[in-house]
């Protein structure tokens, strides 16, 4: 089935295109791929990428080569919440390896796997620019910093109960980027 953006997103995309010179609408590709990932189930299927290509009058390969280059785009289905733990230098110095082990044990899955209830996927990522507040993980648009076992426990509980959302409220002026949190609505 061909995916279809909501009319709100389509009108945001029209505004987005005006931010680049007329002949350069390909520049809108990365922002639109973020929107597609958020709106079409948290990952980019081949159908989603083909659809984005058609919106920008691009060859599908131009979209595939971009989507496969950048780490934020998931090419396979993920859990509802993707827990992306920073593993680089300063976070490793402050205990990131332990946090990954703790998450694996707590959720009973390995890296890049999803819990059977479809809620959580664990991933390792490189530096998130949170080196002074590590260990850190990103879930949707939310950074959870200064991680300890207890903090991981309360974060998981809050995500399960819906107390913690993985998106920041979008300010009034912004037309950018629906978030991962929006995909449930």
């Amino acid at each position, binding site marked *: 089935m061909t995916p279809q953006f909501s009319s709100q997103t389509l009108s945001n995309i029209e505004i987005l295109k005006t931010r680049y010179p007329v002949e*350069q609408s390909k520049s809108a*590709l990365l922002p639109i791929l973020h929107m597609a990932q958020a709106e079409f189930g948290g990952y980019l299927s081949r159908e989603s990428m083909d659809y984005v290509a058609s919106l920008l009058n691009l060859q599908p390969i131009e979209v595939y080569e*971009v989507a496969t280059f950048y780490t934020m785009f998931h090419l396979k289905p993920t859990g509802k919440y993707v827990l992306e733990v920073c593993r680089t230098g300063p976070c490793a110095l402050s205990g990131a390896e332990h946090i990954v082990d703790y998450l694996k044990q707590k959720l009973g899955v390995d890296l890049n796997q999803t819990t059977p209830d479809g809620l959580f996927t664990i991933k390792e990522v490189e530096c998130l620019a949170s080196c*002074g507040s590590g260990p850190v993980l990103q879930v949707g648009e939310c950074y959870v910093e200064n991680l300890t076992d207890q903090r991981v426990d309360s974060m998981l509980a809050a995500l399960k109960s819906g107390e913690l959302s993985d998106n920041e409220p979008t300010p009034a002026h912004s037309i*950018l980027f629906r978030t991962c949190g929006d995909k449930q609505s």
Partner: protein
Amino acid sequence: MSRKILLENGDISGIDQFDIYRQHGGYQSVEKAIKTMTPLEVVDEVKKSGLRGRGGAGFSTGMKWSFLDRKSDKPRYLVCNADESEPGTFKDRYLMEKIPHRLIEGMIVSSYALGASRAYIYIRGELMWLAKRLENAIGEAKAHGLLGDNILGSDYSLDLVVHPGGGAYICGEESALLESLEGKRGYPRLKPPFPAISGLYGCPTVINNVESIAAVPWIVTHGGEEYSKIGIEKSSGTKLISASGHINRPGVYEIELGLPVEEFIYSDAYCGGIRNGRTLKAVVAGGSSVPILPAELILRTAAGIPRLMTYESLSDGGFQTGTMLGSGGFIVMDDTTCIVRNTWNFARFYHHESCGQCSPCREGTGWMEKVLHRIEHGHGTPKDIDLLVDIAKKIEGKTICALGDAAAWPIASAIRHFRHEFEYHIAHPDKITDPDHVYQPMGTK
């Protein structure tokens, strides 16, 4: 306390909002520049200030601006590099989060100086929440006539756009950033032509780091000469230092360039000393790409002179005994740190982030990670150390962009200063995981 320029008024509640920022002198430089100065006069002030690019390379911002091709009939662009991804560096994020309008103000004044009618802030996609806040700040500035058509009633107009990346360290390299902004893979371009001649969409373009642009409002308001009086000689002004690792007070500090390194590490105004009563073992002073130095060489040069937080002092001794100020990502390691494990961690990072265009980097970073992995995991051989040095040499200087160098330097320097630890790992594979041993892997205590 150090002088505040970038973080001036940063502690005032609500300073992230337009009204409060404006009440405390915000956007003065836009008024001054647009109403009383020509664009070239603004460029002159920035030249006089001695401001050097704060992203890592330390090249003169005023010079960079003066290379811009003003004779071309193509549009000119200013692009802000907010793709902060250098391990150990989180200052731009801090600045944008705390005082977003300072960057917006800097973008307006700088765009005016360069004659750009459209400017982009390329921010790493992981910081989407910050991208939205910047958009919000842009909306506020626009509503008050400071952005958009005919700024403050003048005939100067500027459209400022926030553009998110997709997750790729390489996009911090300025030509890769431009490719990415054009909707392509972030592959660095061959230079020349430099962006100042042929940049975004083939048009003359200046790319500056967030922190460099955020210094411009103060320079324009107070004059380049005033700015040049701060700091020491060719290291003028203030710099944001991101402090992380085994210290009591990690965080972002604005320092006057010239502060002694020892004071920065041990004073309670900054890092507050090594945590848990441990001792200092090593420092990576300017983000993961710069050479690591052992305690004695970061505190004093090989000649015994106390080292200062300046471009010149940190690089005193070249790569044999010195390092670089780089991005100011200051990573502190105490005596429990395993240098081999840390080096492997960095090697894995560069292997992951190599864009794959140039063979020496694509293949070499993979080999370095592989060899370091086996040393760290007890399978190293005595030849491995020289093999690493050899691979690093074969990458350095042989790639289109600086990522190859950035991948080679941390490894070459770790072996230069801590060769005994690598040898120990290879000679005593059984002791690597001994919990009481200094070479214990990180994160297990």
